[in-house]
C-alpha cells in the first residue's frame, strides 16, 4: 500500500498523465488510476474532484459538459498546453527522484 502523502503528491502527475492520453471524466479517471496501480493506490474517490477543480482553476486542464443522447451527461476534462508543460516538469522531477532512489538502492545491492 502506498502511503497517503505519496499518493497525494503523485495525484497531479497521474491525472495530467491520464488526460494526456485523451480527455476523460471523473469516474473514468479514478477507474484508470485504480487499474494502473493494481489497487495499491487507495484513496477515497471523492478526493479526486477537488484536485480536478484546482487544476482547472490553475489553467492546467479544461472542462466541458457533453450531453449525449444515449448516455448520461458527462463533464469531460482535457489537458491544456500549460498542463502539458506542467506534466513535463513533473515528469523531470519524478524521474530525478526515481534516479536518485534507483542509484541508492542499486549501490546498496552492490555492497551487499
Amino acid at each position: 500500500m502506498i502511503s497517503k502523502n505519496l499518493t497525494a503528491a503523485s495525484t497531479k502527475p497521474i491525472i495530467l498523465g491520464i488526460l494526456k492520453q485523451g480527455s476523460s471524466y471523473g469516474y473514468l479517471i479514478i477507474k484508470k488510476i485504480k487499474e494502473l496501480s493494481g489497487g495499491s493506490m487507495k484513496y477515497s474517490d471523492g478526493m479526486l474532484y477537488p484536485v480536478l477543480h484546482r487544476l482547472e482553476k490553475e489553467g492546467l486542464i479544461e472542462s466541458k459538459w457533453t450531453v449525449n443522447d444515449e448516455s448520461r451527461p458527462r463533464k469531460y476534462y482535457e489537458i491544456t498546453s500549460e498542463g502539458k508543460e506542467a506534466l513535463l516538469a513533473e515528469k523531470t522531477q519524478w524521474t530525478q527522484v526515481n534516479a536518485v532512489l534507483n542509484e541508492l538502492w542499486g549501490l546498496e545491492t552492490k555492497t551487499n
Partner: protein
Amino acid sequence: MFNLEKAIKSWLKKFYKHSAFNHGAIREMELHLRDHIEDLLSEGKAEEEAFLTAVTEFGDIKIMAKEEYSNLKRKTTIRSIIYTHMFNNYFKTLFRGMVKRPLTSFINVFGLAVAIGICMVVYSFMNNDYSIDRFHTNKDHVFLTTFSVESDGDLENYGKSPIPLGEMLQKDFASIERVCRIKDGNVIMKVNDKVFNERIRFTDPEFLDMLTFPLKWGDASTLSDLNSIIISEEVSIKYFGDENPVGKNMLMKVDGSNKKTFKVAGVAKPFPKSHIIDFDFLVNFENLKELKSLNSFTDWKYLVDATLIQVDDPANIASVKTGMEKYKLLQNQVEKDWAIVSFDFVSINDLHLASGDIVDDISFDGTYEGRVTLPIIAIFMIMLACFNYINIAIVSASRRLKEIGLRKVIGANKKLVTIQFLTENLVITFFAGILGLVLAMSIFLPWFVDLADMPLELSLLDQKLWIFLLGTMIFTGLISGIYPAFYIAKFDVITIFKGSVKFGKKNTLTKVFLAVQLILACVGITGAVMFAQNSSYQASRSWGYNQHDALYAAIPDYSTYEQLTSLMNQNTDILSISGSEHHLANSMSAAVIHLPDRQYKVKQLSVDANYFYTMGLELIAGREFQKDFESEKNSIIINEMMAKDLGMSDPIGNSFKMNDISYEIIGIIKDFHFNNFYYEHQPTVFNVANKSDYQYISIKAKEGSQKDVYMDFQKNWATLYPETPFKGGYQEDAWGEFYEELGIMEKFTTAIAIIFVILTCLGLYGLVKLNIAGRIREFSIRKVLGADLKSIAYNVAKQYVLLSFIAILLGAPISYLLITANIDLMFPDPRPFGYSGVIISVFFLLSILVLVIATQIWKVLKSNPSEGLKVE
C-alpha cells in the same frame, strides 16, 4: 425495500450543506456515483450493496468540502484584483464628478464637515465632563459621605457631615482604610508686602494619599505637621514667583484676631484640566482648634465641608452604609430640627455628575444643561447635513442616469451600483470628517472654549477621539448614503435609455426632508430670538430691592464696623449705613420654624434696623425694626411668600418658635431675590443681629454718587486696614456671573441658529439650483414662447411654496413649545414675552427662503434661452 433513487438523493443532500460546492460540482458527484453503482450492478451486486460500496469508496464529504473550499479561497485573489480595478474606477468617477460639480460637492462636504466638526466639539465636552476628577489613583475606593434630610416632604441630600463622624468611622469599620475631613475657611494670607483674601482647606494628612495630586516640590507627608502648608502651583507663583518656596513663611490671619505663621512644605503640580476638586492651601485639620477657636471635634452640631473615606474594596461600601444607623441616632439626638433620614456614600468618580442633587458638596455640576442639549444639537446638525446630502444625491442622480445605465448594461447588478454609491458616500464623508476635525480644532472649539470658559481640548493623540471620529464618519456615511444608493440602484436600464425616467423632481422623501430642515431652522432661529428676548427681559427685571445704590463689604468684626461708620458718616453722599451678620446675595442661614401643625424650613438673615432702608427692601405691612436693639430681640420680619405660606389672614402679631426662641411677627416685606433669577423666591425671616456677629457693612449712596462713595469707601478702608485686603463692591455686581451666563446663552443660541440656517439654505439652494438645471430646456422654451416673470417665478417656486408653508405651520408651534420649555426649565418665574419671538423668526426664515428662491428665478430670467436650448 431499499430505494436506490431515494438513497442517492439523500446522499446528495449532504453536499448542499457546504457552500463550497456549486450546482455543477454536485451534479458531477451524482454522475460519478451513478456510474460507479452501474458498474457494480453489472458485476452482479445487489442495489443496496452496490450503493453502500460506492458511497464508502467515495469517502468523507466533509474533508472534500474543506479541500474544495481552499480552492475557492484561491479564487478570491483573482476576484480581488477585479475589485481593486472596480473601486479605482469608482474613485475616478467620484473625483471627476466632484470637480465637475463643485457646488454640490461643496454643499455635501461642507455640510457634513460642519456637522462632524460640531460632533467633535460635543465629544470634547462630554469627554471632559466624564473625566472630571477621575485621575486619582484611588478613585474607585474613595467616597464622599452624604446625608439626607426631609424637607417639606422631599428628601434633600447634603454633602457636609458632622465633625465627629470621620474619627468614629475610622475606628468602627475595618474595611475603611483612610478617612479625611475637609473644612474650608476664609483667611487673609500675607507674604512680605503681598496680602490677599484667600480660601484655605483644613484637612487631615490623608488628603493627599486619597486624592493623589502630585507635588512639584516638597513632600506630601508634611501635612501631618501642624505648622506646614501645602499650596497649589498658582498660589506659589502668585506669592513667590518662579522660585521654589519650600521652607518659606506665610502669615495667616483668621477672623481678624487669630494669626499663625506656616512654613511652605509642598507645592502641587498644575492640576489636570478636567478637575473640580482641588485646593489653594492645605493645612492640618487640627489647626481648626487654634485658628477657629474650636475646643473639641466631638460636637455633632458642627458640620465639616466633607468627610471622605477610602475603603479597601469598593464592594464593601454597602456594608459600611448599613452600619451607619448608630451615627444617625447620635446625630438626631443633637439636631432634632434637621433629623437625618440616612447616610450615604458617593464615589468621587460620580461626584461631579451627582452633585446637581447634593447640596453643599465639595464638587459641583455646572454642565448639566450642556450634557443634555449639546448631544441633541449634534444629532440635529448631523440630520441637517445628511438630509442635504440625501436630497442632493437624489436630485443630482438624474445627471448620472447614463452612467448608471451604462454600468448596468455592462453587467453591474443592483448590489454593485449600491456599493458604488455607498463607497462614493463613504469617501465624501471621510473628506468631511477630516475637514470637520480641522474646523473643530481651528474654529469651533476655540470659539466654544472662549465663550463657555471651559478647559476643553481635542488631542490628536487621544485614541478615543479617532474611534469617535471614525464611528461618526461611518454612521453619517451610511445614514446619508443608504437611501440614495438603493434609490439609484433600483432604476431600470431600458427606461433610462428610453429617456422616460423622471425622478428627483417629485420625490416625497426629498420634500419631507426639506420640511424637517425648515422646521429645524425655525427652531434654531426661534431659540436665538427668544434667548435674546429673555436676556433683555432678565436684565430689566427688578431684584426686589434697590441694588443700584448699594455698596457692601465683608468685615471681620464689630469694631471694624464702628471705625468705618465713623469715617464714612462724614461723606454727605451717603444716605445710610447698616451692619449685619448676613447679606443679600452673599450670606444667609437656614432655620426651622415650629408651627402648631408642622415644621417649616426658612432662610434667615440677621440684620440691623437700617438694613431695609439701606438695601431698598420694601415694607408692605407692619413696621421695621427700631433703633433700640434690645427691645427687638424677639421681633421678626417675614417676606410676602412666607406670609402666604403661613396661611394666616393677618400674620402680624403672631408668634412662633425658632431655634428655641419665641418670635413675634412685626412686619412683612415684599418678596425679593436673594439669589439670581435661576432661583425661586424662598420663605425668609429677618431678625436683629447681635453686634458681635456683624460680618457685613452696607451703604446706600445718593443716586449718581455711587462711584465717588465707592472710592471713598476703599480709601477709608485702606487707611484703617492697610494689611487687610478690601472685600466688597457694588451690590449690582453680585450677579455678574448670572448676566454673563445670559450673554453666553444668547451668543451660543445665535451661533447654532446661524449654522442651522446656513445648512438649510445651502441644501435648499442646491435643490432649487439642480431642479432648475434639470428643467433649463423647459424654461428656455417657455421664455421663447413669451413667458413673463410671473409665470417663470410661479413655475420655479410652486413646489416650494406649499412645502414651506406646511413646514412653517408645523415649525412655529414646535419651536415655540421647545424653546419656551427650555427657558421655563431654567427660569422658574413666568416669562412675559409671548409669541413675538416665533413671529419674528418665521418672518426671518421666510425672507431667507424668498431670497434663496428669488436669486434662482432671477438667474433663469437673465439666462439666454438659446443657451438653455443647447443643453443636452
